[in-house]
């Protein structure tokens, strides 16, 4: 009798538990559906706003409407969305049309600048990226100051923005802060700097030759100079090879001599062919192969017989990257014979 009563209680407890779970599931499904409906409504509302803006933006860009016509259509609550909307155009446009987009964005950027002080680093980074794209001239000081932000993400957004400006003066501000980008791939930072153009070569050369600077920072400068194929930097790089001890710096210096060097640099490169370090050896072999007009079959054999299998692979990759087809064919033919 007592057992039956106990079983009934257990059964009742289980049934109530299952009912509670069913109610919770229904509540969760209901909440999900409600959120979905709300998101869809928001998307539709934004799509309607964009449909109103699109023809006018196109008319403004073609010059058939003055840019003022758009401002009456943007409600204060929509200003951040409108800036994001303009970003889509800014990313695709150049020249006078890009300037027009910046002009359209100008009245709304002030509110965005306040977000640079937001506690969330993703908000700050996004604000810097947007201001850097649409209001570089107006908010230059804020963007340069963001290079010192506590977040590396924000500092990188500022660095990208300053190097994309195409202004050597602004990009030089990034050179002074390179140490904080140590954890980023050096080639990425180097490409950003090189994109500014040959006007960057002089400050980059100075940084490369600065023995008091960190090796990691000098590596970025050397890689940027290699992207610029700067012949003056190649002279300095060859000279620096003798005293450089950091492996990454030596490889980077060899890379610069490889792309922009001349045969007269060979005496400074040849000793590194015998380096105990495979990456250094590979880059030195490739540089000698490229610069020495008398690069011989015996030297090719030496490359192929290297104790590290990566050396011949890296040599061929380097030569292919600069279109030295004949040398690559010679090495391939020698490899087949071996």
């Amino acid at each position, binding site marked *: 009798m007592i057992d039956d009563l106990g079983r009934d209680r257990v059964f009742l407890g289980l049934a109530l538990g299952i009912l509670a779970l069913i109610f919770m599931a229904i509540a969760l499904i209901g909440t999900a559906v409600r959120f979905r409906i709300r998101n869809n409504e928001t998307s539709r509302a934004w799509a*309607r706003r964009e*449909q*109103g803006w*699109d*023809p*006018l933006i*196109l*008319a403004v*860009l*073609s010059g*058939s*409407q003055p840019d003022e*016509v758009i401002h*009456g*259509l943007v409600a204060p609550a929509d200003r951040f969305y409108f800036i994001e909307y303009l970003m*889509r*155009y800014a*990313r*695709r*446009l*150049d*020249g*006078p*049309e*890009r300037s027009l987009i910046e002009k359209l964005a100008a009245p709304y950027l002030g509110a965005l600048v306040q977000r640079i002080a937001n506690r969330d680093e993703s908000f700050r980074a996004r604000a810097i990226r947007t201001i850097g794209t649409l209001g570089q001239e107006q908010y230059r000081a804020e963007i340069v100051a963001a290079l010192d932000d506590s977040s590396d993400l924000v500092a990188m957004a500022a660095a990208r923005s300053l190097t994309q400006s195409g202004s050597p003066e602004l990009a030089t501000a990034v050179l002074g802060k390179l140490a904080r980008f140590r954890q980023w791939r050096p080639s990425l930072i180097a490409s950003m700097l090189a994109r500014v153009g040959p006007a960057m070569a002089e400050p980059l050369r100075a940084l490369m030759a600065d023995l008091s600077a960190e090796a990691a920072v000098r590596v970025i400068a050397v890689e940027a100079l290699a992207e610029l194929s700067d012949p003056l930097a190649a002279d300095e790089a060859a000279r620096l090879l003798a005293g450089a001890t950091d492996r990454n710096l030596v490889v980077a210096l060899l890379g610069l001599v490889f792309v922009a060097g001349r045969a007269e640099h060979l005496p400074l490169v040849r000793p590194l062919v015998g380096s105990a370090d495979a990456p250094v050896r590979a880059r030195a072999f490739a540089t000698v192969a490229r610069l020495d007009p008398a690069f011989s079959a015996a030297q090719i054999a030496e490359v192929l017989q290297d104790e590290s299998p990566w050396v011949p692979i890296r040599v061929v990759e380097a030569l292919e990257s600069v279109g030295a087809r004949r040398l690559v064919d010679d090495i391939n033919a020698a490899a087949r014979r071996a």
Partner: protein
Amino acid sequence: MSELPAELLAEFRLAASRALAELRPLVASPNDGSIAALTRIAHQLKGSGGSYGFGALSKSAGLVEKSLAKELPSRLARMVAELEAIVGDLEPGPAPVAPPPPAPAPTAPVQRSILFGEDDPLIVALVKDRLEREGYVVEHRVNGNDVLAAADEISATLIILDAKLPGLDGFDILARLRQTERHARTPIMLLTALTGPQDAVRAFELGANDYVRKPFSPAELLARIKNLTHDR
């Protein structure tokens, strides 16, 4: 009244009928999307009216487009009335001439149609808008295979290709078009986000006439197109 050949007038009448079909419900029951839709239609009428020789219509549509942008919803009724006037202008339309002339008159304007392969809707909108304002007819395709098929069907004055299209890419399309007799000499331009010099070299080696890098200026693009189509 336009002095175009009968075929072109018939083509314009077809486009005008489509515009009318879109306009009527908007006029009957204006809604939130009316301004955008009316602006778009007025804009199209301005471009096509000009290129088909209906100067008065083009001018009127241009005024409507401008006033729509300036004097938003409260003045919608007046704008609709103005568009009705355009519709009124269009409806009598020139009567088609049954037998087409045996050969185009030497002075007949050449219809400038452009085939455009691009998969980014915003770039399509930017390019189409700028070119249609100048009276070009833009045929747009998203997929590389569709571009190739359309090149056979449309007599394009010029072809613009994005390098990275789904299906066949721009370089493949360019190579294939240059192998055909029909497009051996058609001006072809690449509009691409590929910025490396080797990509431009490849395009020119395959027979491209021009190479424009994204981000781009629509004004510069238009100037280059006019140069290639001798529309200066």
